[in-house]
């Protein structure tokens, strides 16, 4: 069997304790939440931390409150989010995203904080040490001067942002709180992400995500996930859409986010152009065509990249049609399945 290397283990009792341990641990310390991303990465030697600071017993990091603003503590399990009737009612995009992450068993232990910080993914990188050694490793090491096999002539890492909840929460306008020994700060979620596959987060290594807050504006939202199978698979494409319709269907605010087509969740700039318009067929198609141009899938996930790109456009328009109120059961097969699918869970 595959085993992770040796590491020290600190069980934090409070967030402050975790922050202190993390700061003292230096650059090779990592937070452990559900461990469903970190531990497999350690077994594959993608990461070789010498200290794990476990958040699993930090009670203050768990829980959801919905009164006006929604606040979710970072250690809340994805299954708890999926089970929350309030989130399902108020923030369908988040519900749908969380419910389709990984598998029921993984969602029992995986957390929202971990999902927002989940490592980027690439077919050339999410492999065992032996496999990566066979290809002479890649730009992400562990040896220096590696090549990015996805775009060998360039000097950057094109690994794909693969969180399902991040696009949904960005579309919903979420902010998050980061805490370290130095103090707390509060940023819009989209600012957590740098467009760099090898170093995808802008936060400092000693900062802990403690909570995620979603403003209470009335919006309609949805999340469309493309994956080959009905469960388990990471997104090969994610489209999160949130709109605030005003009187007569005139859009007052719109945030559309693409996932899994770049190294960061991509807030589509043209979202702004929807404001003041109504979602007619023309408006939707024009928007989808423009927005799909931002999707530049590379050959480092499942499915052929050109095919993924063509689906991006149909997902963009499909998601908006759903929000307009079209009946998804009349959609073509893939759109219908996608719009109607929620993750399966043990009841």
């Amino acid at each position, binding site marked *: *069997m*595959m*085993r992770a290397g*040796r590491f020290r283990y600190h069980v934090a009792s409070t967030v402050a304790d975790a922050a202190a341990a993390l700061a003292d641990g230096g650059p090779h310390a990592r937070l452990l939440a559900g461990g469903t991303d970190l531990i497999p990465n350690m077994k594959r030697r993608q990461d070789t931390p010498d200290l794990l600071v476990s958040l699993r017993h930090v009670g203050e990091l768990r829980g959801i409150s919905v009164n006006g603003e929604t606040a979710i503590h970072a250690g809340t399990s994805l299954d708890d989010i999926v089970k929350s009737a309030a989130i399902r009612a108020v923030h369908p995009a988040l519900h749908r995203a969380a419910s389709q992450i990984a*598998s029921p068993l993984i969602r029992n232990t995986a957390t929202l904080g971990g999902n927002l910080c989940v490592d980027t993914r690439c*077919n050339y990188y*999410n*492999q*065992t040490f*032996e*496999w990566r*050694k*066979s*290809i*002479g490793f890649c730009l992400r090491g562990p040896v220096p001067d590696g*090549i990015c*096999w996805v775009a*060998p002539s360039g000097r950057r890492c094109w690994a794909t942002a693969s969180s399902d909840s991040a696009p949904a929460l960005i579309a919903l306008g979420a902010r998050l709180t980061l805490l370290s020994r130095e103090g707390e700060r509060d940023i819009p979620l989209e600012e957590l992400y740098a467009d760099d596959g090898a170093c995808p987060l802008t936060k400092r290594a000693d900062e802990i995500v403690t909570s995620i807050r979603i403003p209470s504006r009335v919006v309609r939202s949805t999340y469309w996930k493309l994956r*080959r*199978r*009905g*469960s*388990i*698979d*990471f997104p090969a494409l994610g489209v999160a859409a949130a709109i605030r319709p005003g009187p007569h269907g005139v859009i007052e605010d719109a945030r559309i986010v693409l996932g899994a087509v770049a190294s960061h969740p991509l807030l589509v700039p043209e979202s702004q152009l929807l404001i003041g318009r109504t979602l007619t067929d023309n408006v939707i198609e024009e928007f989808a065509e423009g927005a799909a141009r931002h999707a530049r899938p590379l050959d480092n996930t*499942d*499915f*052929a990249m050109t*095919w993924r790109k*063509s*689906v991006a456009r*149909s997902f963009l328009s499909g998601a908006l049609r759903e929000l307009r109120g079209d009946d998804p059961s009349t959609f*073509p*097969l*893939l*759109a219908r*399945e996608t719009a109607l699918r929620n993750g*399966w869970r043990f009841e």
Partner: protein
Amino acid sequence: MSDYRVIGKARRRVDARAKVTGQTRFADDLSFPRMLHCKLLRSPHPHALLRQVDVTRALRAPGVVAALTGKDFSIRYGILPVSQDEEPLCRDKVRMTGDPIATVIATTEEEAYAALELIDVEYELLPVIATPLEALQCDEPRIHDYGDRGNVHKSVALEFGDVDAALAAPAHLFDDLFFYEGNTHLAIEQHASVALLEPDGRLALYSSTQTPHYVHRALSRALDLAPHRIRVVATPNGGGFGGKTDPFHHEIVVAKAALLTGRPVKICLTREEVFQCHRGRHPVMMRMRTSVDDDGFIKAVDLETLLDGGAYGSYGVASTFYTGALQTVTYRIPRYRFRGCRTFTNKPPCGPKRGHGTPQPRFAQEVQLDKIAVALGKDPADLRLQQLIEPHSLTANWLQIGSVGLRECIERVIDRSGWRSKWQKMPHGRGAGLACSSYLCGAALPIYWNDMPHSGVQLKIDRSGLITVFCGATEVGQGSDDVLAGIVAEVLGVEPYDIRLVTGDTDLTPVDLGSYSSRVTLMAGNAAIQAAERAKALIAGAVSAKLGIPEERLVFAESRVFDAADPAQGLAFRDAVIIAETIQGSIGTVGSYKPPAAAARFKGGGVGPSPSYSYTTAVAEVEVDAGTGWLRVEKIWIAHDIGRALNPTLARGQVEGSVYMGLGEALSEEQAMRRLPPRLSHALVHKTPSMLDYKSPTALDMPEVFVDLIEQAEANGPFGAKEVGQGPLLPIAPAIANAVFDAVGVRVDEVPITPEKILRALKASGRRAGPQQFPSIAWPQAVYVPPPWEGGDGRAATKAEEALQS
């Protein structure tokens, strides 16, 4: 129906309780005092000479007890006598990424793993042969120093009747190319083995293998140790599907390490290593030419196959023949030619996966028949029904057919699925497709030439009333233990759950060749009947003498032995055994089974003959999204001619499991390799060596499956039973391909049938996705055999001789 009490009744399998409560001990569950752990250093390069392998530094690492290299072994091994081309650890050369080079034995798995990094290896890289085309084009460097020529492992050609003449002036000639991608077994249990020395110094190996007998032979050979000094115990397999039917390097390595250290040594492969062991479905390119008359009757079939064999021989020679052997057993084919070629490539070796070599040409044949039906304006079901193979007949290639329930299979699925109101009658985007298939019930010839039984069963019954069944058959999840218990229980009138089974242990059980080729139910089942009938006769004789009831009136049922004329007259089974043991002495019987001799007597005729053939028909209903090519398989109706279902619960499980596995092959599974830009790297690695990335369907991807078992007793089968483990996989992929055509009018002549390919076909002018050309291959002169209806006796002749005679 029958008046059997156990046979044919749906029951919980005898090992179900242990499995669902976690009591079953798989190989990796075994642990012994002072046990050491083994890890293998594997080649990062696909093709290279080994200049030096130095384990000095590794030996000094903490916890390390021993380290071995190729120099510690001198004898090659392999499953087939003609392909003894594997080394436990490579000596001079590696032939694929993942080839084992050295091993470290240490007190913990972590220490063994860490020390691998300290082994110093010098490689001299060789050019890489990555595809069959490259193998055909590049004779040098040779991956192996044997084979037909260059990197061609084996090419074969067989011709039954003058096919060229039959193809020359056909009413209609269909000439199609197909490609079936390779895929792997993906058994949930990764291979694991523990070797140890028994107190008397003999070697024992516990291993997740489907073929303990063949592993026994390979160990004896590779370690140069007398077979009676070796015991191989097959632990219950957490799935095998053909992936555990070869002897493996890791089994030999832990055995050697146990001999050297005197301590138990264990290995459990990682999932990636299992992908490298492979032995899965060969990728096969096919050209199939079929001539039919105006009414759609087949006149002749000419099939060419090109197999991507990977780095070793494995079962490959058999696999090659299997891509041609069973094309003739479903429909009447008056003349048939088959030419197959297997190439070596620097990739994990292919071998036997559920259906061994036959799903690929079956896909070709069933899709082509669909094309023929459409072209001639016939219903595909009718096209098949009009030319079904006759029961108890000989095929063009001299296979002896027994019972055939194919007509009933077709009729059942078209009835239940509403085929007549669906095919060509549903709205655009929805479609139905039909396909049939057949499979063997055990190969009539063993892997190595011998005239001994293929399966043996021994029964021990004593005064406790306990019946113990000893049989070399191996439980791989298919239910072979339940088959043995059910059969013996039926004959001796006891409960299957009261029977004790000792299976798959070369020290304790009579030889059974193994759990492959759908042979166990038929062969071990027949052996079990014989052993049980003999025991019954012993007991009946004694009881008859004691109670004065004529033997032929004695009934064994309800755990009693009693008088059919007066059921009150009799005694408990246990008391009957006591009487028998008193009169006869200790009670032990044996039974064995050997398949009937084959009718084929030409070279190459050893692959294909079987005591019986099972038949299957499936209808798939699909929806296709014409905008994206997305495909959803909604429903599958499947009817399988099983002869008799010994335990319908298990039989249905096998059918559903086959549908599941066929679905994965049809839609998404690919054992595909990744190549990097050649100027930067000559790596050749598995694209998706994990259960996350290798896309096997999940429970949520399963369509609704409607299973029907067609029961028409087969004379050669135990209680009339035929196989059910493999055949039902075969029609799934072609039924889906045909349904896609019915839905949106495009042909995907290739599996897996992905949305990308469907979309490509929808946009292509030819409305097709699939291979564009079949390479020209220098075929050997065909072995010419007149089919039974053109005279001859199953022996090869030359065409010229034929011409003279007629």
